[in-house]
């Protein structure tokens, strides 16, 4: 029970359809975890619940050392608690420059009054630049993010995620639309991050998951089917049935 995030017994029903069924999940403060599962297994809904987008019908989601009940917080509060999320489809603010996007994500006070009179210090500019370089957008700081390519947007979003300095990163299909080299880069970035952060990666691509070399949780029909190393779960008869059998 020393986990950073403790999810226990949550269920969600959409119009009679059970998207999440008595799901329990836990992750430590510095751990990399891959969540896999077929379409409709409830991966995205699970993330929605943790980030406050969807309210579960029952169950508990506890966070951090003080065991804060995340179900009582809204999305923004959860984000401020230190949970960052990268969406499946890159969602950056296309009307604004890369620098503005990163600056907005930069860890700082979030209340309107503080933000209104907030002025970026030299360190903030330096940090933005550093992040941009890290995600390969060092040259594109002044460009509108709407002009970026799909892959660049993915990177920008990862950069924004890093700028938030969250303790837990929820990363939804980070490799989609990336070149092979970029995938490698992403893998090493995530593995690096997991030394100090909790990272949950949702992914379809088994090769990518294998490269992450971490504990894997298999979701099926809204609940955990198997958990363990990739080799362990791929050897599981049920998992094989779910993935290959039908």
């Amino acid at each position: 029970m020393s986990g950073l995030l403790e999810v226990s017994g949550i269920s969600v029903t959409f119009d009679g359809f059970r998207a999440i069924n008595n799901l329990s999940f836990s992750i430590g403060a510095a751990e990399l975890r891959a969540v896999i599962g077929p379409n409709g297994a409830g991966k995205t809904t699970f993330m929605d619940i943790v980030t406050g987008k969807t309210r579960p019908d029952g169950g508990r989601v506890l966070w951090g050392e003080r065991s804060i009940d995340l179900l009582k917080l809204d999305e923004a509060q959860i984000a401020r608690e230190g949970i960052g999320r990268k969406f499946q489809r890159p969602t950056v603010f296309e009307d604004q420059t890369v620098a503005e996007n990163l600056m907005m994500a930069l860890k700082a006070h979030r209340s309107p009054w503080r933000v209104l009179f907030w002025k970026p210090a030299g360190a903030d500019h330096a940090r933005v630049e550093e992040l941009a370089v890290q995600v390969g957008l060092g040259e594109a700081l002044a460009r509108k993010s709407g002009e970026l390519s799909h892959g660049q947007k993915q990177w920008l979003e990862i950069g924004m995620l890093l700028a938030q300095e969250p303790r837990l990163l929820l990363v939804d299909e980070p490799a989609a639309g990336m070149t092979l080299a970029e995938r490698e880069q992403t893998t090493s970035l995530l593995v690096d991050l997991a030394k100090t952060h909790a990272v949950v990666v949702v992914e379809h691509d088994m090769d990518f998951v294998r490269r992450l070399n971490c504990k894997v949780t298999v979701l099926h029909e809204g609940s955990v089917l198997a958990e363990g190393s990739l080799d362990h779960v791929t050897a599981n008869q049920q998992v094989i049935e779910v993935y290959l059998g039908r």
Partner: protein
Amino acid sequence: MTQGFLSKNPSVLIFLSALAIFTLVITFLSNAYGAELISTSMVKTLGKTLCLCLIAIAMDLVWGYMGILSLGHFAFFGLGGYMVGMWLMYARTRDIVMQSSAGLPLTPQELSDAIASQIFGVVGTSELPAIWAFAGSLPFQLALVLLVPGLLALVFGWLAFRSRVTGVYLSILTQAMTLALALYLFQNDSGLRGNNGLSGLQNIPGLAWAGQDRLSVWFLWASALALGLGYLAAAFTVSGKFGSVMRAIRDDEARVRFLGYPVEGYKLFVFTLTALIAAIAGALYYPQAGIINPAEIAPIASIYLAVWVAIGGRGRLWGAVLGAAFVSLVSTWFTGGRAPDLNLGFYTVKWVDWWQVLLGLSFVMVTLFAPKGLSGLVDMFDGLRPPQRRGAPLGPDDGALQEREAQE
């Protein structure tokens, strides 16, 4: 800080200089201080236009930058006008009553009774309603100019944003609020003289000696000052990270939430701030107009405000100012009967009758063909082109409702 802010936003300096030059030119052409080339009523019209530009800035902040199409900002404008109008009417009536009283000096009770029967004779009561308790005090009433609309915006905004009503629903809701307020004020027992409204506001108590010629110029100065300060404040708000967050909320508020920003708080902040700007604009407008009644608050006025901002070009402050000034002045010109009739041979177009049709249609045209409004034309001259957008459309207005739908 201001140094850096102004140097980073040259358009603010340009705007402020233009405003100052405009004010000076009008002053030197006015009856009171110069060449007597511009009539006092024209000065008043220009002063009023400056106030309308100010509320257009408020609208641009809340709509152009934040994506909340409020159809209620004229309610705040009107409330500001009412608050200042109460003092103007009360103080002026008090002067009249004091002058006309003979014999014994009046007791406070007699004085307030006499004022009440003067003001409220038209609606058939002679009691001073409780909301007029502070009407005798200018500082109090000026505080109410900000307090009443501010509180209304705060309460309404809190209710509306808390329930995460967005898009078209929110617009309808703000329209409903405005309608409710207007209907309330239309009643005779609302305490604000029903559909008679407040009148004689152009006579400023204690300044009767100055005459309308000078007063009109003074109000022009005050309006220009307010517009300048409002522009500065708005430019400051939208320039930094706050402006970044505002535009981000407009484009994808759900995403902003996941960055940790309390979206509802921002909306409430901007909604209330713009309500205050609108209230100040109203408080300066109605002493120049001379009369305020509930019809001014009707939802249609706020919709016109959106029209001005859209025609001027939203998402830029000077575009909103331009739109408000242009459309309201042209509208005054057409509806004032000064525009020459257009003889088509088989039919004579009287602009008084056809101006609305023209406005409505040109508005449709602007929405269809020039979403950036008049300021978009300026871009074309500058050779600027909007950035090519790729990927999934998530622009300012794209499917805002659909996104909201997706959240349930």
